[in-house]
């Protein structure tokens, strides 16, 4: 593409689709996709109108990702067809899809860290000067023009690695728009950004809608559905269930469609007799990250840690567990002051820590379920003279697997092949096997389906019954409100308040979290 046609391509007016020409900008008709031994998509259809946000809903493993990958040219369907602007298209590669006007914003953003914003957006389409070299000035101007139209305020010369997740997302969106895409696919765009950034993102999405772009939006968050989506389609077990306008249904209707069963109790909070104080934290400080955090947790109590992403919640959890030892302040367990300078010590003190990021700090992806479960108990239990008591451990992990209802043919299955919810259960099993007295959970149900979520919630309640002191971090307000006995709210590294279960509500928490 030469630079002249690029500038022309930037002119939005020429690209606005004419809605009267076709009713749907994107249609997927009777798509079928099989993997060895599994039907991932079974006669699935999807119709997206121009200028609307169409949400895809479904439990993990429902087939949403497979469907998206077909639309984006990453997978080839085994049956059915894709129609773009009313006519059938073949999408043998992601590049053809991109050139046909379908852009996908992946959950894990695919940008080049050591290149600038402008270079990332115009890669492969760099404007050239008359000597055939890249014209950086022109590229910068094109970028600014694009940003102006999208209301994005970023420096085109900034390197990607210096940007926050939200800003990287903005770059991805700008890049997608620069292709004059008619269809934009967004895979859980709000999973890693703060509430304020979500608001900005939604503004941009509304702009894109107004420009006639059809947006396919995947999310697990119900409130987003009502806020941003015009229509939604529900999938279950690789099959299409229904499409509705988001105004005509309630949250419960959707959940019912997704799981195919009534969830009577989303949060089975039960009154648990609280015991003595197990964990007591005073003035815990990690320089430059958080300071003066103090709280007590009793046996059987669930303490919720609320706050926006970046408020230091996860850092407090990491410090409690010795991942990043504190600079000052004290941690006492059952009245005795302890020093926790490594996770190994924390485990010996009876602590367990389910980390926020399943892939980065949780799963050993190449290893099997059994190996994933046993790793935290190899310190003294189940090990005699350096040798691991295999049979004993196998029984223990199998029992744990049954108790948590991990769906798998057997314990020798590679954890990589499990769904997100089942992986999470394996990680919980790892920590339950250590018989913890203090359980720290960081986003225990992030990115997992509604059914598994409910199971994990009732499991946490059971543990509280057994007298485990639980510290639970969650970005999902209903989860924090539904599960916690008390809620500690953080803002920019400081504790801004502790709310009792009775007095806590969404407004009070937001008030403390946003100050």
């Amino acid at each position, binding site marked *: 593409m030469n630079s002249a046609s690029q500038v022309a391509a930037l002119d939005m007016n020429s690209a606005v689709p004419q809605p009267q020409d076709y009713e749907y900008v994107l249609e997927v008709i009777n798509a079928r996709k099989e*993997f*060895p*031994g*599994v039907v*991932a998509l079974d006669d699935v259809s999807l119709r997206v109108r121009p200028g609307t946000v169409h949400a895809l809903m479904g439990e*993990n*493993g*429902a*087939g949403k*990702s*497979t469907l998206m*990958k077909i639309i984006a040219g990453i997978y080839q369907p085994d049956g059915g067809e894709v129609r773009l602007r009313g006519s059938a298209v073949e999408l043998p590669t992601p590049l053809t899809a991109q050139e046909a006007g379908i852009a996908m914003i992946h959950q894990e953003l695919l940008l080049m860290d050591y290149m600038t914003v402008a270079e990332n957006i115009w890669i492969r389409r760099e404007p050239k000067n008359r000597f055939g070299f890249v014209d950086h000035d022109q590229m910068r101007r094109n970028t600014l023009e694009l940003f102006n139209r999208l209301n994005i305020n970023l420096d085109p010369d900034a390197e990607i690695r210096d940007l926050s997740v939200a800003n990287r997302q903005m770059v991805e969106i700008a890049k997608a728009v620069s292709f004059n895409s008619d269809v934009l696919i967004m895979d859980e765009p709000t999973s890693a950004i703060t509430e304020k950034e979500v608001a900005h993102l939604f503004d941009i999405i509304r702009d894109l809608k107004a420009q006639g772009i059809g947006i396919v939006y995947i999310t697990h968050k119900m409130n987003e559905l009502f806020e941003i989506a015009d229509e939604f389609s529900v999938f279950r*077990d*690789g099959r299409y269930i229904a499409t509705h306008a988001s105004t005509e249904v309630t949250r419960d209707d959707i959940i019912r469609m997704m799981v195919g069963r009534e969830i009577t109790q989303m949060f089975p909070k039960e009154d648990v007799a609280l015991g003595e104080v197990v964990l007591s934290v005073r003035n815990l400080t990690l320089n430059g990250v958080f300071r003066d955090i103090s709280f007590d947790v009793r046996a059987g109590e669930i303490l919720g840690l609320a706050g926006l992403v970046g408020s230091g919640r996860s850092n407090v959890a990491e410090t409690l*567990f010795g*991942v990043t030892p504190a600079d000052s302040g004290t941690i006492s367990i059952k009245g005795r002051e302890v020093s926790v300078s*490594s*996770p*190994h010590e*924390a*485990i010996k003190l009876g602590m367990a*820590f389910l*980390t926020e990021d399943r892939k*980065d*700090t*949780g*799963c*050993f*992806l*190449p*290893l099997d379920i059994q*190996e994933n479960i*046993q*790793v*935290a108990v*190899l*310190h003294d239990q189940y*090990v005699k003279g*350096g*040798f*691991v008591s*295999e049979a004993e451990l196998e029984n223990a992990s199998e029992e744990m697997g049954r108790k948590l209802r991990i*769906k*798998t*043919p*057997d314990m*020798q*299955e*590679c954890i*990589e*092949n*499990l*769904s997100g919810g*089942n992986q999470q259960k394996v990680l919980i099993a*790892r920590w339950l096997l250590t018989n913890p007295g203090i359980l720290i959970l960081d986003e225990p149900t992030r990115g997992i389906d509604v059914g598994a979520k409910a199971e994990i919630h009732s499991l946490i309640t059971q543990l509280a019954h057994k007298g485990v002191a639980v510290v639970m971090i969650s970005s999902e307000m209903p989860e924090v409100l539904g599960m916690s006995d008390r809620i500690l709210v953080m803002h920019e590294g400081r504790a801004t308040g502790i709310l009792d279960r009775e007095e806590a509500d969404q407004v009070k928490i937001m008030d403390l979290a946003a100050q």
Partner: protein
Amino acid sequence: MITRTATAPGEVPVMASRKRLPPEVSIFLVLIGIAAFFEILGWFIVGQSFLTNVSRLQIIILQVSVIGIIAVGVTQVIITGGIDLSSGSVVAMCAMIAATFAQSSNWPKLIHPSLADMPFFVPLMIGLAVGALAGFINGWLITKTKIPPFIATLGMMVTARGIARWYTDGSPVSGFTQSFTLLGNGLDRWMPVVIFLLVAAIFHIVMRYTRFGKFTYAIGANPQAARVSGINIDTHLIKVYMIAGLLTGLAAMVAIARIKTAQAGMGLMYELDAIAAAVIGGVSLSGGRGRITGTVIGALILGVMLSGFTFLRVDAYYQDIIKGCIIVAAVIVDQYRQGKRSKKT
């Protein structure tokens, strides 16, 4: 739901039964296939059998033994997600230093002219200690200064070779005591094989049934998750590199006891042969996957290839070209297997 395993290539679908076939089975089949290939070509081209020649088989397995001992240590390094480029040079360093303690009085002694004849275990222990020290330095550099294993062991590779040359000003050392040479020629000349198989068996058990082994896999699979699971990564990695160095020292002792001389230039490219044996045996360079049995078969494949091409009188230059292609092919197969795995969402 897409939670079931699909069958990976080369694996037999055994979903119903609890025990799966280990991946080594396919590598073993490759070994059989290569041996059969040489057997058939042997009858056609040379007019004799490749496999039924006992002395040839002995030479194959003796050649494999030294590389094999190193490869066992390197395997555990690769499983942690690291690499050890220093093995070949450390062989030379250990050999030169230990050899000067293994000389018998019938010969002019190079560094320690007035030294009495030492029992075989003195030079052996010195060789092991020098190897372990080199490994410790590798591990310490990697964990404490956070430089990549590639660089740390590259530095050791150059340094150790330099020390080997400097130690005797480049002169070879020979004239070992009778008891020391038994390390390479004892048990009717099968000693290197016995030591290799013993080392392989011990580390097979260590990697599969001990905490040390489980932690090694965990660190390679996901170092951050390993840390949160209470594993002290630094100490563990130092141990892993020390063992790799120790086994390299052992390999050096076996090698010089067998050929009855130590030279500063020996062990050239051994590190690459050891890494190749591991990789051909299915040990994944991205860490977390692989077994000692695979490495042993990988080493045998290398040995059979070498001997087979010599048997067919293929020029040595071609041998290297073919060897290079096989190493690359093994990594391609590994990548392909991993690609299959990650494609299933």
